[in-house]
């Protein structure tokens, strides 16, 4: 088992004919992900990488029975793409796109909360269940199947950690990038609960960063609701207040969201916090 994606994933690619969409679709197919088709308005009827292209998610859904969708469309069209997937009944929507305005995401999130669909991202690297399916932009070959669940707000930092695990022959159930935006579809707690419920996941790595209070909430959740060991790492101890560190959500505001606060909360909850990413395999 795994969480979010596996051999049963039937993936639709929104923005399949774009440069990024096409490149990563090829990568996902190569990895063995079951891509059933793509959507690009105005290009319905064409074929890309041997997959049918549809004009609308609705048409694609009806024709392919996709249960998952990944979004590579530009930021200004991304919220519409999310609503379209939601409305068509796609269960899992993974939005890679970076740069969606936060007011738009607040609305998206409010709509999501009224539906039974789940959004991962936006501004995230996606999902990787080693040996089964890869949805998004994570490099597939740095991972290997195993029993560690990885959840992270970051991209390359996650790869770094996953790669370090793999090099020590510590495999992963699923690697989950929840994204670096201040408002997103899935947060740490959602994923932690899923890992807790997943029989194959034995240990968990949580990679947080400055900004917001999701790590503090996760610490509290772990202390009260989880039986499986969690090792954490928080990036941004040297980040100055009031400055956005690349990710839209990585900012210390009004004294809140510091790495120190997050590490203190995790420590208080009895969670081991690595001093640097390479320490994580040892702490597991």
């Amino acid at each position, binding site marked *: 088992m795994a969480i979010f994606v596996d051999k049963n994933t039937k993936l639709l690619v929104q923005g399949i004919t774009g440069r990024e969409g096409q490149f990563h679709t090829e990568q996902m197919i190569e990895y063995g992900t079951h891509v059933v088709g793509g959507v690009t308005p105005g290009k319905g009827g064409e074929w890309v990488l041997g997959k049918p292209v549809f004009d609308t998610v609705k048409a694609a859904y009806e024709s392919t029975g996709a249960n998952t969708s990944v979004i590579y469309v530009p930021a200004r069209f991304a919220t519409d793409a999310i609503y379209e997937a939601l409305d068509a009944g796609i269960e899992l929507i993974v939005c890679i796109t970076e740069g969606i305005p*936060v*007011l738009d995401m607040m609305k998206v999130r409010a709509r999501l909360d009224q539906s039974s669909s789940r959004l991962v991202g936006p501004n995230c690297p996606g999902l990787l269940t080693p040996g089964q399916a890869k949805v998004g932009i994570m490099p597939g070959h740095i991972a290997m199947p195993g029993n560690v669940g990885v959840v992270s707000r970051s991209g390359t930092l996650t790869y770094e950690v996953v790669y370090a695990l793999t090099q020590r022959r510590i495999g992963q159930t699923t690697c989950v990038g929840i994204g670096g935006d201040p408002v997103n579809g899935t947060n740490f707690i959602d994923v932690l609960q899923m890992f807790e419920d997943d029989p194959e996941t034995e240990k968990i790595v949580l990679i947080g*960063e400055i900004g917001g209070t999701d790590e503090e909430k996760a610490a509290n959740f772990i202390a009260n609701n989880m039986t499986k060991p969690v090792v954490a790492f928080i*990036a941004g101890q040297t980040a100055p207040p009031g400055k956005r560190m690349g990710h839209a959500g990585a900012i210390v505001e009004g004294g809140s969201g510091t*790495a120190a606060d997050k590490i203190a909360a995790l420590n208080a909850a009895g969670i081991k916090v690595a001093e640097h990413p390479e320490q994580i395999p040892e702490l597991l």
Partner: protein
Amino acid sequence: MNLHEYQSKFRFADYGIPIPKGKVAHTAEEAYTIAKDIGPPVVIKAQVLTGGRGKAGGVKLARTPEEAQQCASTILGMDINGHEVLKVLLDPASDIQAEIYLGVTNDRAARKPLIMASAEGGMDIETVNRLTPEKIIREHVDPFLGLRDYQIRNLAYGIELPRELWKQFATIAKGLYRCYIASDATLAEINPLIIDGSGNLLAVDGKMSIDDSALYRQPELVEMRDTSAEPAAETEARAAGLSYVKLDGEIGCMVNGAGLAMATMDMTKLFGGSPANFLDIGGGAQADKVAVALRIILADPNVKAVLFNIFGGITRVDEVAKGILDALAEVQVDLPMVVRLVGTNEEEGRRLIEEAAIPNMVSAATLADAARKAVAAAQAS
């Protein structure tokens, strides 16, 4: 992106919020004319995108145009937290009877806009929140419904605003919320909103931050960006599509990915050094981008060593190594450099770096190793 006080207030005025009839001066002479024009006494305020200007002497009261000129000449050119003062705002001095705080921000935990009011205006809201949190009245706004009249009444009632001012307050609160939404702001704040001598509300100081992700649909606000007010390197980095933040340390960091960049910064600290910057060069790491990044890092006189930390995922490490070497052919680097390449084809990438045999560049296998080497190099140089 942050707006200056004068930009924020002038924008507030577009949404029906009363502000002092002030003007901006770039020179002391201009300040004299403006002070004469609007009539003393005037307040002269440094326009800088940083806090603490009051303590730094960036706000002064002048009783005559001559005095205004003198004050302006003192303030203009002043350095406030590393920001040079290039403009001052001259406002007619107000008779302050009471100071109120009114601000809209987005509450990421609640995933809703949050409007806050406090009778304790004048000091910053974080301080009020720390000292007397009960004095902040909060209303979360449903982004679909917008700010409702009853919520404004809840605020007015909560801060015990005299009832004769409720109508004015409602106009201001609605204007501020509309301004916040229409500007894709992450913060729109009036502090203080004063009750003046004639018993009216007036927005005496203002502040706005704009969501960078929404700038594509805010061309008017993009025009307002004051690049003169930010380090030139940040402007250059933005133009090149790089994410750069200047810091005070001595180790220049060049990393792909924001999280990894922060982790790299932290590592230099962990091993006794300190980072000179945050710099995310993004995916791919082509030679031209690396070259721009290098130039930006080297422009910082504090930098004593450069640390490259690149994770090769989809892009292979050997390709990244070539990009770095190509960039080094373009940009002359005399400082010590530590290169750490990890991920796909890492051996090949490291081999390329070693074969290039650049005298002031060493390779490192782990992040810890790289950080240690960079700190040592910086301390030695």
